[in-house]
Each structure stands twice: as structure tokens, then as C-alpha cells.
């Protein structure tokens, strides 16, 4: 009997993950032991402190380039950059989640078990304090995302996927108002998420089969083994390509790429708006972080084969996002389609097989996260007696009612449209330029054309806000509490700064753009 040899674990390098997961566990305990009155404040501060602690550890670890936990986790440039991005964006999302002055009691239902549309439900909607379980759920999700971008083998990646997905399913169901819509969204997300996880798992199995039989190596699903197997494995390459296809379907589902995007509008619309923002910013970062690692590390040798297929997916994604955004009438669904189109642009960056492509994609992820969180922050503020007024017709004339927030939202929309002096322009440039260098002009042309189409729905909202007379139904804009105001200002400032002076972040991304293998 051989002695069980434990792998060495670099706890310092793993500390951001450990902090988040530990904080989530403590959060559950807080739910159990801290009096209800104080729970909200304690949970919020604790979660924020955990995020900041994890961020500090990321910064302290910023020079790490290593594999740990027997090669299951890679702490390298992209991991640290993306973990940092996730943590900062998550902090902003937590600020939005913790807001309780805009909507009395917060955006979350007081008790998830109350039957929707019942008398009790209506009573809780009037102002009962929202459930504080959202904080441990959010921290679990953040922890899962941190593992997801660091995962260096497919099984770890799968577990991380589930760790951050399950809390998100729950979070989607916790809206205080329009609870049927919220529960429906959660249900759809859960079913389709489980469905896509199955694809992912099946892909893992096929790739495992493919790696078997490489001389001198045992079969495995860690990326080094896969990387070595591509090109040398005696197994049929059908296994490999079917595996890549199924794996990428699982990841593209999370990234909201067409045709796996169908859940996005419904879930974005039904979920509580802060959670939508959290998903749009952080899930995007996590999903693309994983995509980058899988395609740049594990399957780099098969780039010639997957690029055309994923390129077609990218073009389809841009087209679907842009074209469908044109006829949307709900601001959250509009932003959902915008997020889908942005997934297409990000794929262009993923498919540029160079350091610039990698760093450009990472820059895009961070910049887009700031803008989209700011956009959803504004959405939380435009409301009437029944909660948020998300129908676009209600936004007509908002510029007269509330010039400041209309101006802020206009700025964010212009950033989404890629107007210069906003981060939208610099980030699109950052992904399109390497794609051009790599000879993938067709992707860039599709990107530019769809950007033009996409500018229409954005500008339609701008025109509506400024050039229409406010009507009877035009809602007022709530005065944001300090937390929302902070998140909004961070998002807007980042959008502006990354548009005017993107060099520091670009340099940071460029310095981090190297995977360890």
C-alpha cells in the first residue's frame, strides 16, 4: 500500500478564495446567531470587509506565477487581474445590494417562502426588511468565481461553475416585487444552467478519453495534460473536437453567447436589479476568464480548428444582441441584449491568439463591468410606487425631470455605443486591434457593423430621455442612498477615466497577460 502523499498547497496564493469562501460560511453563522435588527448591517460590512481583504491579498500576491493544489489552481497574471476585477466589481455590486433607502427594506424579498401575489406578499412588499441571506449567497458566488478564473483543470472548473451558479439561481428568485417574474427567471436560469452544465461535464468526459494513451503521461483533465495530448494523442480527434464543442457550450452559456443566450433577457429582467448588475459584470468576467484559460492554455494547439467555429458564434452573438436590442421595450431587456452583443465583442478578443488579445479582453471585461454596474444602478433609481419603472416608454422626458441622472445614463449609453472619450471606445479598440493584427478582419468588420446597429437602441433611449416631453407616467428618480451613489460614481468615473487615460490599466493588463502552464 503506497503512502498517501498530500499535495503541497500554497495557502497564501489561495488566500483570496479562502477568505471569500470562509466569509460565506461565517455569513451563514451570522444569519443564525446575530439578532435580526443588526443582521443587515453586520452582513453588509462583513461581506465588504471580506471582499476588501481578498482584494488586498490579490494585490499582495500580484507577483505570484505558480500552480498549486497539485496543479488544480493556477495563480498567474490573468488569474490575479481577473480576481481583482471580480472583487472590485463585486464590491460595487454589494453596495447596490446593500442599499435600503431607495426601496424601503431593500430590493429583496423578506421571506422567500411567502406565496407570490398573496396578501402576505403584498404586506412584505410594503417595507418589511429584506432577507439578509443574500450576503452569504453573494459571497459564495464571488468565491466560486475566484476559483473559476483560477481553475487549472476541468473538474475544478466544473465545481467552481456550480459553486457560483447555485447561489446566483437563488439570488435571482429573491426580488421583492414582481415575484412571479423573479421566480420564473430563477427557475429558467436553474433549468437551463443545469442543462448546460451537463454539456460541460460530457465535454470533460470526452476530453478525458482523448488524453488517454499519450506515451509517458496518464490520462487527466488538467490543462497541461490536455495541452500535451493535443497533437500527440493516438485517440481519435473526434473525441477532442466533440469535447471542445461541448465544453465551450457550457462556458458560452455562462458568457451569454448566441445561440446559448436565450436565458439572458428573461433572467436579467426578472432578477433583482442589483443581482442583474452583479451577473452582468462579475459572471461575465468569470466566464470569459475561464474561456480564455481553456482556449489559450488547454486547447492552444487546436486554435486553427476552433477559431472559425467560435468566430461564427461571435458574429452570431453580436448580430443577435444588436438586432434584437433594436425592438426591446424594457430597459433591463435592452441592457441584456447589449450584454449579449458585448459577449460577441469579447469573443473577438478571446480569439486573437496573442498577448495583446489576452490583455485587451481583460481590459474590456473590467471596463465593461464598471459601465454596466453603473447602468443598472441608474435603473434601480428610476421608479414609481410599484417599484422600478423599466418600460422604456416610461423613460420619456426623464431629462427634464432629472437632468443629472439622465445625463449620467446618457454618458453610460454613449460608452456602450463606443463613443470616444469613454471606456467603451478604448475597450473595443483594445479587442479589435489585436484581432486585426491576427488577420481576423471579418470579426472586426462584423463588430463595427453591429456596433452601428447597436448604437440605434442606445441613442433611441437618449433621444427619448431628452427630446420627449415628460408625460403623466414619467416616473421620478429616487434620491440615491450613499451606497448606490458610491457605486454609481465609481462606475461613471471609471468609464470616463478608462476612456480618457486607459494607459495604466492597459499596462497592468498587458503585464499580467501570461498564463502559467
Amino acid at each position, binding site marked *: 500500500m503506497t503512502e498517501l502523499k498530500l499535495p503541497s498547497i500554497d495557502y497564501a496564493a489561495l488566500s483570496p478564495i479562502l477568505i471569500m469562501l470562509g466569509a460565506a460560511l461565517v455569513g451563514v453563522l451570522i444569519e443564525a446567531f446575530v439578532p435580526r435588527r443588526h443582521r443587515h448591517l453586520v452582513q453588509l460590512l462583513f461581506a465588504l470587509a471580506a471582499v476588501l481583504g481578498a482584494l488586498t491579498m490579490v494585490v499582495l500576491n500580484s507577483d505570484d506565477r505558480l500552480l498549486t493544489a497539485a496543479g488544480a489552481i493556477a495563480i498567474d497574471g490573468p488569474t490575479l487581474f481577473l480576481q481583482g476585477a471580480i472583487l472590485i466589481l463585486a464590491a460595487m455590486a454589494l453596495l447596490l445590494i446593500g442599499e435600503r433607502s431607495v426601496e424601503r427594506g431593500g430590493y429583496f424579498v423578506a421571506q422567500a417562502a411567502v406565496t407570490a401575489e398573496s396578501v402576505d406578499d403584498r404586506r412584505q412588499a410594503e417595507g418589511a426588511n429584506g432577507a439578509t441571506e443574500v450576503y452569504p449567497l453573494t459571497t459564495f458566488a464571488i468565491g466560486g468565481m475566484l476559483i473559476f478564473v483560477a481553475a487549472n483543470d476541468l473538474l475544478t472548473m466544473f465545481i467552481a461553475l456550480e459553486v457560483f451558479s447555485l447561489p446566483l439561481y437563488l439570488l435571482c428568485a429573491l426580488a421583492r416585487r414582481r415575484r412571479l417574474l423573479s421566480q420564473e427567471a430563477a427557475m429558467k436560469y436553474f433549468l437551463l444552467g443545469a442543462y448546460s452544465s451537463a454539456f460541460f461535464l460530457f465535454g470533460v468526459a470526452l476530453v478525458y478519453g482523448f488524453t488517454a494513451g499519450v506515451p509517458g503521461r496518464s490520462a487527466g483533465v488538467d490543462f497541461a495534460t490536455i495541452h500535451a495530448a493535443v497533437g500527440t494523442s493516438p485517440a481519435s480527434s473526434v473525441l477532442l473536437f466533440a469535447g471542445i464543442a461541448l465544453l465551450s*457550450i457550457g462556458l458560452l452559456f455562462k458568457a451569454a453567447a*448566441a445561440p446559448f443566450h436565450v436565458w439572458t433577457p428573461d433572467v436579467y429582467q426578472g432578477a433583482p436589479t442589483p443581482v442583474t448588475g452583479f451577473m452582468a459584470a462579475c459572471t461575465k468576467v468569470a466566464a470569459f476568464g475561464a474561456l480564455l484559460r481553456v482556449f489559450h492554455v488547454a486547447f492552444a494547439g487546436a486554435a486553427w480548428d476552433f477559431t472559425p467555429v467560435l468566430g461564427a458564434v461571435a458574429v452570431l452573438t453580436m448580430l443577435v444582441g444588436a438586432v*434584437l436590442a433594436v425592438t426591446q421595450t424594457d430597459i433591463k431587456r435592452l441592457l441584456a441584449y447589449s450584454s449579449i452583443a458585448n459577449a460577441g465583442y469579447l469573443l473577438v478578443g478571446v480569439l486573437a491568439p496573442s498577448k495583446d488579445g489576452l490583455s485587451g479582453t481583460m481590459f474590456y471585461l473590467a471596463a465593461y463591468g464598471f459601465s454596466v454596474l453603473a447602468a443598472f444602478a441608474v435603473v434601480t433609481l428610476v421608479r414609481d410606487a410599484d417599484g422600478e419603472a423599466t418600460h422604456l416608454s416610461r423613460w420619456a422626458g426623464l431629462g427634464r425631470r432629472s437632468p443629472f441622472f439622465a445625463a449620467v445614463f446618457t454618458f453610460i449609453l454613449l460608452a456602450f455605443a463606443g463613443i470616444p472619450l469613454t471606456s467603451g471606445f478604448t475597450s473595443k479598440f483594445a479587442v479589435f486591434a489585436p484581432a486585426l493584427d491576427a488577420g481576423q478582419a471579418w470579426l472586426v468588420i462584423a463588430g463595427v457593423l453591429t456596433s452601428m446597429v447597436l448604437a440605434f437602441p442606445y441613442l433611441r433611449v437618449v433621444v427619448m430621455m431628452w427630446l420627449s416631453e415628460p408625460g403623466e407616467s414619467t416616473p421620478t428618480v429616487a434620491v440615491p442612498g450613499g451606497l448606490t451613489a458610491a457605486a454609481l460614481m465609481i462606475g461613471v468615473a471609471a468609464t470616463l477615466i478608462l476612456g480618457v487615460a486607459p494607459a495604466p490599466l492597459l499596462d497592468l493588463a498587458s503585464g499580467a497577460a501570461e498564463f502559467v502552464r
Partner: protein
Amino acid sequence: MEEILTYAQAEPAGTVAYAPAGGLLGSVWLLVAIPLVSAAILLLLGRRADRWGHWLGVAAVGAAFVLGLTYFFQLRGLENKSVERSLWQFIAVGDFKVDFGMLFDPLAAVFVLLITGVGFLIHLYAVEYMAHDEGRRRFFAYFNLFVAAMLLLVLGNNYVMLYFGWEGVGLASYLLISFWYERPSAATAGKKAFLMNRVGDAGLAIGIFIMFATLGTTQYDEVFNGVGALAGGTVLALGLLLLLGATGKSGQFPLQAWLPDAMEGPTPVSALIHAATMVTAGVYLIARSNPIFSANSTLQLVVVSVGALTLLIGCVIGAAKDDIKRVLAWSTVSQIGYMFLGVGLGGAAYALAIVHLLAHGFFKANMFLGAGSVMHGMHDQVDIRRFGNLSKYMKVTWLTFMMGWLAIIGMFPFSGFFSKEPIIVAAFEREGWTAWLFGGAALLGAGLTAFYMTRLFVLTFHGPARWTEDIEHPHESPKLMTIPLILLAIGSVAAGFLLSTSVPDWLEATAGLGVQEKGHEAVLAHWLITTLSLLVTVLGAGLAWALFRNGTATAPQQAGVLVTAARRNLYVDAFNEAVFEKPGIFLTRALVFLDNRGVDGLVNGLAAAVGGGSGRLRRLQTGFVRSYATSILTGALLVVAAFLAVQAGWLA
């Protein structure tokens, strides 16, 4: 024909070198600054300056004149009579450098004296002439702006500075032509002048671009020293573009149509800008660019042809016009044609053209101011058929105008004789048949000039009175108007002789100008040409005197083909309308149509297609999980199939 059209390269015109301006001459920029500051004060103070503004304007130009005289005498004492002063780097982008610099040399000096001297007298005259106009302060502001821009034009030491001044005078001219902008005709004339000048200015601008592209500089000295190294075709293109600019500003063929319309402005404007100074900027440009024009004989031929053609056009149309200012305007066109002829002939004739330019500045300003004086006394009547017998009522105007008349027709011993006759002689000094062609044209022009100017003079001041009913007793103009007239009349008498004896020698010191080359022997003897020119002058004048001694009908009469054509400006306006305006309007309409139907249609169609597609695709988003799952499954199958297809090489 062949030897004319070869791109013959003449010998380089010697090295052009300018000395740095020191001492008093270092402050030559003051010439531009003083009127400019005055214009700024007048414009910025607004109504507060209404009471004294006109005197500030007069004083500014007077000061510039005194300063100009001082510089002139300074310059006379110098060895190298071309001094430049670089004030600051105007434009510096990479290799593209432009100085903000001044060049004061004999050529610039005579222009400075003309602009400020004649300008001062006209300013003085305008104080009285515009006395009853509410916009007098504004008028003087624009007038000073013009003087500043014109001085910048002649004082710059590179083509960009020249262009700067060139556009400045264009602006001032536009503002002053449409000074009475509430009159539609004035507003239209201003626009016409502006647009036609644009055509010329575009040529000048492209010419300057060519200098940048081929020589990498626009400094006069560097351009002139480098032009010898350029290919013949480049020099030709450069020269033709500069010539286009010159024809636009100077009202020469084919861009002459704006100048007569420019008479819609107040009369002092016509006198200063559209007779004495601005319209001679084209002559200045060609004289200044002498090394470029001398470098290519084809170019000189074109300039000479433009001059000869224009001088005849001006004479013919001038003979058929009945508006006193338009006759004078066409005579300006014609006289500038003589100057172009002179500068085109090259060699010593450059100086002759400048002499004629200066002499013309005096007598034409004199006659314009005289015309203004007549109009002043005749309730702003401009039709010479409604004048007559004014010599009895406006003695000073009559006598001074007579000096101008005798000068312009080139009667001995008035100034026109000394300035025009040498140009005619020079035209006869060309080689072969072109001598006869251009010499004959110049001689014919002299006769025609005598005819129509005598017609103008006789119809205005002699013969029976044909006044409109409301005029009882025409009055002479006040002193402030007659004194400038008298001074200019003295100039009309004396300037020609003085200038023709001194200026050519003086200009010889201009670097790059006045390179004396021996002209060909004239095809006719000098004395014969002189006699002939006097003869045609007397003939033309006598014919007009005989025809119009007894007045003329007060309404237009039936006329032959030539006169009708001349009345309609030889159909140049009709030609412009048919060839440029109509197709332009058609093109605009076609583009608007294309934009509305084609571009907008395409864009709107695309938008509709996207919108329609969006609407249809939206229906796929049913909200049912089962259909979502189906779509994911379909997508998954497609992706797997695509991967397998790639792997199997089907897509390769």
C-alpha cells in the same frame, strides 16, 4: 507654336538673399499693427466710438503713412535694400514651418506708400462722404481692417503671410461691398465677389501647397532660390495656380465679373479697394513671384494673354455702360489688364507694370472720388445719361476729374502717358507675330480707352443738362472732399513722369525683381509707336467728343450686336450662369435627390430591415424554457457538427 509651348527653363534669376532688418526698420510690423488696433478699437467700442471713431481711423492710416515714409527713407540709405524681420514662428509642425515675418524691400515700400498715401486721402474724403451714414464708425473699422490686411499682404516674407493678408483683404472687401447690406443688390454683389474670389483663392492655396510639397517651404527667398531646381511641369502648374489667384483678386479674365458689381459699395470703397489697391494685389503677386514666372516662358505667355484679353474686354464693355461707377470699374479691369501685360512680358516690363499700377492708383482714385462727388451733388444718381453740363456747377470736381481723364487716356504730358506708353512699346518688343498680336491689342486698347473715357467725361460734365426733375441746382462738395480730389489730381498730372523716371531704378534693388535682360528689338520704331498711341488716343477721344457733344438719349436705344453684347458684359455672366450656376444647381438638386431617395432610402431601408428582422427574431424568445432548451440543443448540435466538419476538413 512649338517653341512657345516648350517648358523652357530660363537661367536662375540669381540668388535671392534678404538682410535682417535692424534699427528703425525692425519695427516695420507697426505698419500692420496700427490700423489693425484701430480697427479693433472701433469694432469693440461700438456706439461709444461713434463721435470720434472716423478721426481715429483717419489718424491710424495717416500715422501708417508717416511711418511708411520714414521706413522708405531708411531703406534708401541701405546697401542691400531687402530687409526682413522674423517676428515669431507662426506654424511649426514637424518639417512644416512658417514664419510670421516681414519683408521690407523696394517693391513692398512703393506699395506701402501707395496704400497708406492714397488710403489716407480716401479716408479723409470718406469722413465727409459718409457723414450722414449711421454706420460711419463701422465703415472706418472695416476700412482700417482693409488697410492692415493689405499691408500684411505686401509686407509678409512668405506666401502664407501673403495668403493671410490676401484673405484679410477679401474679407474686408466683402464686408465693404455689402456695407449697405439692407440693399439686396449690395448683399448679392458682396456674395458674388466673395464666391468668385474663392475660386481664385483656392488656386493660390493649392499653389502654396505645391510649394510645401515640392520645396518644403514658403519663404520667398527659399522658394525663389529653389524654383530653378523644379521640373518644368511643376513650375508651370505652380505659376498657373498663382495666376488663378491673381486673376480672382484683380478681376482679370476669366474671373472679372465680380469687380463691376462690387461698385455697390460706398464710393470711397470703390476708390480705395476696387481701384487703387486691393485689385492690384494680383499684380503684386505676379511681380513678387517674378522668379517663378520668369522660369517658364509658357507661363509668361499665359499671363500676357490674360492681360491683353482682359484689357480689351474691359474697354469694350466700358464703352457700352451708362453707370458712371461701372464704367470706371471696367476701366479698372482694363488698366489692370495692362499691368498683367507688363508683368507677363517680364524683364524690364515688370517695373513698368508697377509704375502703371502706382500711377493708376492716383488717377483712378481721383476719378472715383470725383464720381462720388458728382453723385453727392446729384442725389446719388449714377446714370451718365442723366448728367450733363455739370462743369458749370462743380468746378473743382470737373477740373480734377479732367486731370484723371487725361491721365487715363494717356495724353501727353499726364501720368498715364508715361506709364502706359512704355508698356505698349514693351509689348511690341516680343518675338515674331506675338509682338504684333499683343502690341496691337495694347494699341487698340489705348484707342478704346480714349473713346469710352471721353464719352464718360463729356456726358457727365458737358453738353445739355439731362437731369432728373428733382434736381434744381447741383452743388459742389465740401472742402473735406475736394481737397483730396485736388491732391490726387496733382498726382494724376505729375506722378507719371516722376515715377517712370525713378521707380524702375528703385525697383532694380528688389531682390529677385528687375533682372534686366535685353529685350528684343521692337518690331516698330519707338517714335512710331509713341506717335501711333497718341494718334489712336486723339482719334478715340475725338470720336467720342463728336458723338456725345450734344448729349445722348436718356433711355437705352436699339443697338447692334457688339453693343448689346457689351451691355450684357459680353455674356460672361450668362456664360457663368449657364456653365457653372445651372449645372451647379442641377448637381445640388441631384445630390439632394440622391441623398433623400438613395442614401436615406438605403439607410432607412436597412433600418427597416433590421427592425423587421428584430421583430421577427423576437418571436423566437417565447418565454418557454422548453423552447429555450430546444434552441440551446440546436445550437449545441450545430457547434458540434461544425467542429466535426472542421476536423474532417469539410470547411477547409
